[in-house]
């Protein structure tokens, strides 16, 4: 029997290290896998048995002796028994492309990665021209997963077309939105997939240097990425003359320093250059004048990770998932006040209600759901009347909401939406880079005006003022920070107006 206990952030935060120690005490050296993303079952102990790979969770150190006993007799008799892993409905019903390998084995083991189709996409890419690779990405319909949903193939084509002695691939791993952890899970459970995607991107556009800009809040991902890069260099998937192809690609992880705005691509580039993370005006596009003024592909972790499976399994395979212009799969991150939170990879088109009710099984507190925020701190708060919206970029845009990076934060009926609207403005005060006045000053005024509305001071006029302020922020800010902070504010006002009366949480 082989035992696995995860070493990703969430499992560690829930005590997987003490479970590992308890196994060692019992004379068992567990394998350290990444998480499957079924966070409600973490720490999830998996055991490879004659009857298949079975799971127990959530496990604590004191459960280990009884689990070992049950394994000798009848595993299904144990109260934490979850059955065969592949048959758990939460997992079985998913359409996993990017997360197909997550949790299966040691995330930094190269043999494990290659035994599960790892580097197959790269091997194919090494036989192709840059244009052929870019065409595959275009045909797949892949759109940027960071939030803006720009077609990846078109961005790559722009960089490929640039005539330059130096180009860069930059991975945006500054996953700052609350309710998101999909990038982290890729980096912690399957880091080679990201590395492979970045090498392919380098081959496609003719870039020989890549940077992963990683937020400093992810120490576990930092450690695992550095180990993975070191090992990939040792076996010549990174460095000079990759696998004898004559192609070169170097890769380095750079740590951010706790600035949310650096998830905005131009601010990220400034930060990578060693400067304040001030947003740049566009044009010039980063694809033409990006890092150090050179043509640069800036893509989110999930966009780059998807590249390896697109090259391996073909653009058509990827393109067959999804709806409308949203092709492929979406990494839905179910978070907040939810009973079964975790990573759910599905084709675009599933409704918010299906995700929250069928996968999530309602709130953690057991109370009714009141509001759902999709797409991070700049996403709208959705009332129940909007939960049947399919998860598709265009369908969400039509209700003035956004899919963003796919994070879903659930609030129960104790949530005070006026306080949440105030927080949206407050967050903008803390995290604005300061370049645009509507964002820098407007957010400060926004907090004050909301306070006055809640205090019933000149209420009608202050409501008008708040809407005008939101207009100014939306129209007068360079990036989404100032431009979209009004989304959660306006949606809270529109759907939960009774909370703004100074009596705390209201009736609607």
């Amino acid at each position, binding site marked *: 029997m082989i035992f696995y206990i995860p070493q990703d*952030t*969430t499992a*560690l*935060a*829930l005590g997987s290290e003490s479970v590992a120690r308890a196994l060692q005490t019992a004379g068992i050296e567990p394998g350290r896998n990444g998480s499957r993303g079924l*966070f*409600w079952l*973490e720490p999830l102990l998996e055991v490879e048995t004659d009857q298949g790979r079975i799971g127990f969770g959530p496990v604590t150190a004191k459960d280990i002796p009884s689990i070992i006993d049950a394994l000798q007799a009848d595993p299904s008799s144990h109260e934490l028994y979850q059955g065969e892993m592949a048959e758990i409905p939460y997992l079985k019903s998913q359409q996993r492309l990017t997360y197909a390998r997550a949790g299966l084995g040691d995330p930094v083991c190269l043999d494990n990665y290659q035994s599960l189709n790892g580097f197959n996409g790269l091997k194919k890419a090494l036989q192709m021209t840059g244009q052929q690779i870019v065409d595959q990405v275009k045909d797949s319909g892949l759109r940027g997963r960071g939030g803006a949903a720009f077609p990846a193939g078109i961005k790559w084509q722009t960089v490929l077309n640039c005539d330059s002695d130096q180009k860069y691939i930059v991975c945006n791993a500054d*996953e*700052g*939105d*609350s*309710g*998101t*952890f999909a990038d*982290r899970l890729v980096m912690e459970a399957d880091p080679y997939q990201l590395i492979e995607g970045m090498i392919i991107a380098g081959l496609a556009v003719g870039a020989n240097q890549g940077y992963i800009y990683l*937020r*400093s*809040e*992810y*120490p*576990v991902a930092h450690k695992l990425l550095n180990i993975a890069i070191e090992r990939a260099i040792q076996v010549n998937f990174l460095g000079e003359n990759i696998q004898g192809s004559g192609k070169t690609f170097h890769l380095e992880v*750079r*740590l*951010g*320093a*706790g*600035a*949310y705005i650096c998830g905005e691509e131009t601010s990220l580039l400034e*930060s*990578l*250059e*060693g*400067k*304040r*993370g001030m947003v740049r005006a566009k044009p010039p596009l980063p694809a033409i004048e990006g890092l*150090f003024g050179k043509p640069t592909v800036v893509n989110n972790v999930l966009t780059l990770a998807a590249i390896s499976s697109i090259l391996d399994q073909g653009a058509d395979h990827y393109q067959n998932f999804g709806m409308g212009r949203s092709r492929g799969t979406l990494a839905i*991150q*179910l*978070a*907040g*006040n*939810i009973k079964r*939170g*975790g990573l759910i990879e599905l084709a675009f088109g599933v409704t918010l209600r299906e995700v929250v009710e069928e996968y999530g099984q309602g709130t*953690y507190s057991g109370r009714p759901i009141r509001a759902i*925020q999709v797409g991070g*701190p700049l996403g709208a708060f959705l009332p129940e009347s909007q939960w049947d919206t399919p998860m598709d970029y265009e369908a969400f845009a039509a209700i003035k909401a956004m899919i963003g990076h796919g*994070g879903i*934060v*659930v*609030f*129960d009926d104790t*949530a005070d939406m006026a306080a*949440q609207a105030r*927080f949206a403005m407050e*967050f903008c005060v*803390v*995290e604005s*880079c300061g370049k645009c006045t509507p964002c820098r000053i407007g957010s400060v005024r926004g907090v004050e005006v909301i306070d006055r509305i809640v205090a019933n001071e000149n209420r009608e006029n202050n409501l008008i003022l708040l809407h005008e302020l939101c207009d100014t922020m939306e129209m007068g800010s360079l990036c989404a920070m100032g431009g979209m902070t009004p989304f959660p504010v306006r949606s809270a006002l529109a759907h939960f107006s009774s909370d703004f009366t100074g009596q705390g949480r209201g009736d609607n």
Partner: protein
Amino acid sequence: MGISQNEQQSITDLVGQYQALPGGLLPLLHAIQGDIGYVPDSAVPIIAKGLNLSRAEVHGVISFYHDFKTSPVGRHSVQVCRAEACQSMGSRQLEAHVKQTLGIDYGETTADGAVTLEPVYCLGNCACSPSIRIDDAIYARVDTDRFDDLISGLSSEEGAAK
């Protein structure tokens, strides 16, 4: 605040190590902070000279990022997540409890120099909120009791180290 000759030397060495790295200022600042615990004011002219920047530019970068500290911090860093997923699970109450228990506000250090308290906007552990980070370890589903356990764990650890 003055720094020791050793610290001065270590800053100079680090500047030498990072000055040729493209966009090396952030990695350099992380390295200095990793070594000394903060980025002392007296490091600014050394960095500026080594990286061929103005002191204003170096100061501007240090002050832009939440991570960089310009004065000594506690032996442990405690970060409480203030973002929405944690709020939906009661982090506002946890936040109040933490401040009261430690007797300090965000950005402050306890009188015994043990703990510096900081807010953080998302630790990426949002399916098991509320989350806090103590040094490099992240903890999930932290309620007030669990926080008290973690803090008393820190003090007994320190006691054992003495």
